[in-house]
């Protein structure tokens, strides 16, 4: 039996191919059942995200290459994609490496943005979909449950999930480093640039209290204000209303700064020197750089935000390396469990054979001793069971240990030969 993952992701295939191969939530259950039908007995999970399509299969008695080939043909037929084209982008991992891959995926180490939090939920949805479709089995269940546990451990033991990964979220985090609660704060948006709007969306998600919008074209300001649930101000009134803003987001197309040092000095005086966070996303800059010298103003331009972002991403990469080493021990644990499972049929077979021998010899013995009472016959029966259990106990333990350190096929073959078992 083998656990095989076959798939493609943002590193191995272009977006166009991933789009073609991706499964929608509605069609996934049917795809799962159809793919499972191509194996005599298997567990199947299909994971689709914007950056990957992966198929996890546990199939007994089929070589991993054949499993991968079946999955490839299925994807090719289901999506009408040339098999050769698919083959160039597909990767395959088997058993322990398949587990390692899934653990890395669930922990977001393999993600386009390392540490992104959505992937674990997506992996959970994929597993639940397989469970509902009836295509999950004991091994798939164990594999995915361990993946969820590993992801949780990585999150708690590393700082992989910390540090923002977009300009907008960096801006929000910085705002939260200055202000305790954004719900009582006011953001002033100057201009109608796309980056400014994106930053404002992040601030809204973080619960900013109120929004003021200013633009040279007042109609545009009104539209923006309506879109974000704020108030529009005439352009000329911007300096006089600057003191109302705790956060200022500027993204105009102006060639010269529109907010100068004297504007902020006057505003700070009216605000009793309460701090102001200024996000200047425009190029050329909208805010005079001298403003950053003022005591209670925290000015970040686009370069500053990108530097913070770069620091965060680098920190996540370093944490990913640490997380990868944490995953190693979990992979070893799963591999041991899988080997134990592989040995199960042999162990069961040996137990059954010995039981048959015991029953045969017991019958012969009891026939030869007709004078025994019922109690004595029961005691002889118990004794024979105890003898068999005692004989088997040590070999069972030892063979499970040996499976970890030596070639499983050789160990199981020797095990069967020692007990004279010809099956399996």
């Amino acid at each position, binding site marked *: 039996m083998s656990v095989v993952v076959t798939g493609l992701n943002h590193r191995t295939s272009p977006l166009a191919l991933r789009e073609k191969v991706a499964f929608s939530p509605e069609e996934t259950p049917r795809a799962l059942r159809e793919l499972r039908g191509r194996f005599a007995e298997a567990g199947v999970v299909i994971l689709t995200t914007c950056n990957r399509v992966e198929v996890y299969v546990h199939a007994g008695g089929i070589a991993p290459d054949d499993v991968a080939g079946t999955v490839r043909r299925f994807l090719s037929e289901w999506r009408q994609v040339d098999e050769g084209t698919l083959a160039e982008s597909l990767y395959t991992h088997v058993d322990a490496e398949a587990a390692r891959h899934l653990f890395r995926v669930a922990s977001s180490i393999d993600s386009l943005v390392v540490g992104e939090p959505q992937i674990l939920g997506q992996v959970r949805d994929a597993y639940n979909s397989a469970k509902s479709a009836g295509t999950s089995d004991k091994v798939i269940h164990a594999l995915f449950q361990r993946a969820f546990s590993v992801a949780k451990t990585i999150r708690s033991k590393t700082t992989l999930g910390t*540090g923002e990964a977009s300009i907008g979220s960096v801006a929000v*985090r*910085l705002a*939260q*480093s200055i202000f*305790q609660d954004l719900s009582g704060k006011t953001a002033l948006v100057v201009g109608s640039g796309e980056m400014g709007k994106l930053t404002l969306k992040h601030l809204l998600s973080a619960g900013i209290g109120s929004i003021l919008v200013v633009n040279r074209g007042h109609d545009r300001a009104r539209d923006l204000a309506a879109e974000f649930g704020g108030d529009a101000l005439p352009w000329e009134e911007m300096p006089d209303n600057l003191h109302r803003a705790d956060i200022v987001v500027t993204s105009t197309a102006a060639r010269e700064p529109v907010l100068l040092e004297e504007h902020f000095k006057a505003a700070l005086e009216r605000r*009793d020197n309460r701090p102001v966070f200024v996000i200047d996303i425009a190029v050329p800059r909208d805010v005079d750089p001298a403003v950053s010298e003022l*005591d*209670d103003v925290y000015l970040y331009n686009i370069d500053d935000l990108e530097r913070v972002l770069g*620091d965060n991403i680098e920190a996540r990469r370093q944490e990913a390396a640490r997380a990868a080493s944490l995953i190693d021990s979990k992979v070893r644990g799963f591999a041991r469990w899988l080997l134990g499972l592989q040995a199960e049929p042999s162990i069961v077979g040996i137990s059954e054979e010995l039981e048959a021998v015991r029953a045969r010899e017991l019958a012969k013995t009891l026939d030869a001793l007709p004078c025994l009472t019922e109690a004595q016959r029961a005691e002889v029966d118990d004794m024979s069971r105890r003898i068999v259990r005692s004989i088997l106990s040590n070999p069972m333990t030892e063979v499970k240990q040996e499976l970890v350190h030596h070639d499983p096929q050789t160990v199981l073959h020797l095990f069967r030969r020692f007990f004279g078992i010809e099956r399996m």
Partner: protein
Amino acid sequence: MTGAIGTFFLAGCAAYVLGAVLALLGARRGVRPLLHAALGLAGAGAALFAVVLLLRWTHWGLLPLSTVVDALCLFTILSTAIAAATVATNRAPGLVPFYLPPLGVVCVATAALARDYLAAAPRELRGAPLAAHVGLAFLAYALFYIASATSLAYVFQNRRLKAHNTRGIFRELPSLERLDTTLVRLIALGYPLFAVTLGVGLIWAWFDHQLLTPQWWFAPKVMLSVVSLTICAVAFHLRHSNRLLGVRLAWFVFVGFLVLLFVDLMLVLTDLNTHNFWEGGV
């Protein structure tokens, strides 16, 4: 008994020093478990110091508040308790590297003096007002110490934000607004406490002035307490009228504490830390 007391004291010092080291290591990379461990060690150190005080109290039958070592133990216990409460309330382990290292340094310095002081009996504190005055004074100074460490955290975080540096411990510190609120709360607690401390001291001095000369209220030690109260009062009132906010308030509190600390150390080191300074009394 002195051997046991000495052992507990040194173990407490070691716990604080180790906690301070862990706090600094955790600060470098912003590693939260290290910061939590540092605070845990400080808690263990405080517990050990509490045992030291208890043993000295039961051994001598006198409240141990008068020697340098007793003062360190009590001050450190109170500071640790206030620090832990502040860290827990703000859910900000990033404050630990600001609170612990100075306590670690003080422990190292005092450990060198410990032997003679631990063997000596504490001075008798005559009357409840005097005991209350001394105890409250330590609590007030512990609050002032934590306030000044918090103000240092504010200055640090402010500089980081100005310099666009968000690495390391930046994430484990609360927002500037929260640091400001915490600072104000600590001052708001310390200010009336200093006032009560001085009031209780006045009561003691009025009723039990056999040990004191008529000019006791001019002694540097008393003046220092009045100046401490004044600094707290100025900070509190200026903050409430919004005339001293943010980084300016933080610097005011921090520098104020440093000045008081320097003067107090000088008084202790020159043996002038007495109520009867002008008469050369005890």
